[in-house]
């Protein structure tokens, strides 16, 4: 019976030209576009410079800054008032003011102050811009020490970026894309399929047959499980091919993926049990998708969320799976390091599926 039902499901999926294409196109598009646009590196910040010194040193510094690639020299202004005006007008993002006796002070005492002011309307841009700029200043200072023998006193903070030394945001995002793809393909798509049978009335027709409902649901899920694993494999291939990303262990990825798939497909069934129409199910899914993605640490680190939001993230299966995927990809972690996440994900799988069974019984 299960074999026959699966045959029917696959027939229907392949016959639906739209769905079968989307299933293939989705991962490719995600992999090709997503890592590039969901990028929080800041580039081409518009810099306004107030150079009150006009010395060799100040020129060298300015040259160094523009050569970094992060800044686009927007203008030289005569006074800081002018610079602030162009920030107000939204033309400049960041101001660097070099004091009058910049070179002289450096020769004499090795000590001077430059002022950085950033437009923090976009906090991320302002913050990162200042950090980049002070980094360049530090570099400049150490260069002076080496070349000129001037002992500068800038305290040099040298952050070491572990596991992602080039601070490549793409490396950070790609493992998270797998998580989103699996959630959509194995959690939400089968749920929509089940609801559509409800809406078409075929579920009611099948209810007046001796068919076992559990087998019916299983036949709905298995094709998407298979597709989920297949798509995961394709995307991992793409990640290796396009971005040179290779995980620590494929086995670990597959083990965690299977547990995660069980959890989200259980969640999907819960949604389908409470929905009578596609529209209703779609709406619930959009609502949930936004929340679980925002509260998973996919885009923004959980540690910088308010405490109450951090509590919510603990109840989000995505949170754990993203941690796992990033750990496997970036740190090459194995099962031992990720055991806590394994148990939590198993817990989600059990909880959602029990809920699915209970809510199904209730709706009868």
């Amino acid at each position: 019976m299960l074999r026959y039902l699966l045959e029917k499901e696959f027939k229907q999926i392949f016959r639906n030209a739209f769905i079968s294409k989307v299933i293939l196109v989705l991962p490719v598009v995600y992999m090709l576009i997503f890592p590039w646009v969901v990028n929080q590196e800041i580039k081409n910040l518009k810099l306004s410079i107030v150079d009150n010194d006009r010395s060799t040193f100040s020129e060298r510094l300015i040259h160094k800054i523009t050569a970094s690639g992060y800044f686009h020299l927007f203008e030289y202004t005569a006074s800081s008032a002018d610079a602030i005006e162009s920030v107000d007008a939204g033309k400049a993002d960041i101001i660097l003011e070099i004091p009058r006796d910049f070179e002289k002070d450096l020769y004499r005492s090795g000590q001077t102050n430059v002022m950085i002011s950033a437009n923090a309307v976009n906090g991320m841009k302002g913050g990162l811009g200042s950090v980049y700029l002070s980094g360049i200043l530090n570099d400049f200072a150490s260069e002076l020490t080496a070349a000129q023998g001037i002992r500068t006193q800038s305290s040099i903070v040298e952050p070491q970026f572990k596991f992602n030394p080039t601070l490549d945001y793409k490396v950070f995002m790609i493992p998270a894309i797998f998580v989103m793809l699996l959630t959509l393909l194995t959690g939400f798509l089968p749920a929509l399929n089940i609801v559509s049978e409800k809406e078409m009335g075929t579920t009611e027709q099948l209810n007046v047959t001796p068919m076992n409902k559990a087998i019916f649901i299983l036949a709905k899920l298995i094709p998407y499980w298979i597709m989920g694993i297949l798509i995961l494999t394709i995307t991992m291939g793409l990640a290796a091919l396009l971005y040179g990303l290779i995980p620590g262990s494929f086995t670990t990825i597959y083990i965690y993926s299977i547990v995660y798939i069980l959890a989200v497909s259980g969640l999907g069934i819960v949604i389908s049990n409470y929905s009578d129409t596609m529209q209703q199910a779609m709406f619930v899914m959009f609502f949930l998708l936004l929340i679980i993605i925002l509260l998973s640490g996919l885009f923004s680190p959980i540690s910088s969320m308010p405490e109450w939001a951090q509590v919510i993230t603990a109840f989000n299966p995505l949170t754990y799976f993203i941690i796992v995927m990033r750990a496997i990809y970036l740190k090459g972690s194995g099962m031992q390091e990720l055991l806590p996440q394994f148990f939590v994900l198993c817990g989600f799988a059990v909880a959602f599926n029990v809920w699915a069974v209970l809510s199904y019984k209730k709706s009868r």
Partner: protein
Amino acid sequence: MIQANNISLNYGGVSALKDISFQVERGEIFGLIGPDGAGKTTLFRILTTLLLADSGTAIVDGLDVVRDYKVIRTRVGYMPGRFSLYQDLTVEENLSFFATVFGTTIEENYHLIKDIYQQIEPFKNRRAGKLSGGMKQKLALSCALIHKPAVLFLDEPTTGVDPVSRKEFWEMLKRLKLQGITILVSTPYMDEASLCDRIAFIQKGKILTIDPPEKIIADFPYKVFAVEADNNYKILKQLRQSESVRSVFSFGDSLHVVFKDVSKIEKEQINAELKEIAPTIEDCFMALANN
């Protein structure tokens, strides 16, 4: 074959079925006749184990609908009012799907559906969603019959079907009856009522009467007159206000009038021809529904 005892059901405070009791004999075509919203579908869903009644019991083919629901599901065929097959599967795939679900094959029970299925067999590779209304109906009936059910539940099978297909459909039901299959059928069409062995008038969740259609007509206590005029609407309004008129309804091109006292008819001022006719099932239903 089917026995309903005092079935009641409330839907969010509104009572959908009130104390419904009736019995259907083996090999009978039993019609549930009533307007939309009378509770026909709800009753079907209870009898086909899809819905639980608040009170009352029902027995189908000797089995209790609550306790033995699993066994009942193997012995009844249900055709819901809405086309409920897979639109993206072909005619043949749908049929073999339902055969497999019931643990049988098309070949095994082909003789049962032969008459019906032969008419759509030329289109067996067409997707069900692309069939015409009448063909969909035939396919749905074939699917409901493929496991040789003892009882067939047909919920408004002819709604939205053209008159020729409707006629054919009822002829098929007659033939199925000859094979010993019990049929419970609902319809909002009064003309189909006379094709049933017995009918139950149902309105607002209550059964008004249960009898063979001939008996219902024979028992109708009033004389019915038909009025045909150019200006039906004006006469209808006029008659509605008249003291001596019990009821008047428009039936296609004519008006059917029932008077309180036939001897007083002459005194009425009607500028149209008045002709006594034999009452139809619809007249009986209207009279019962109005009481």
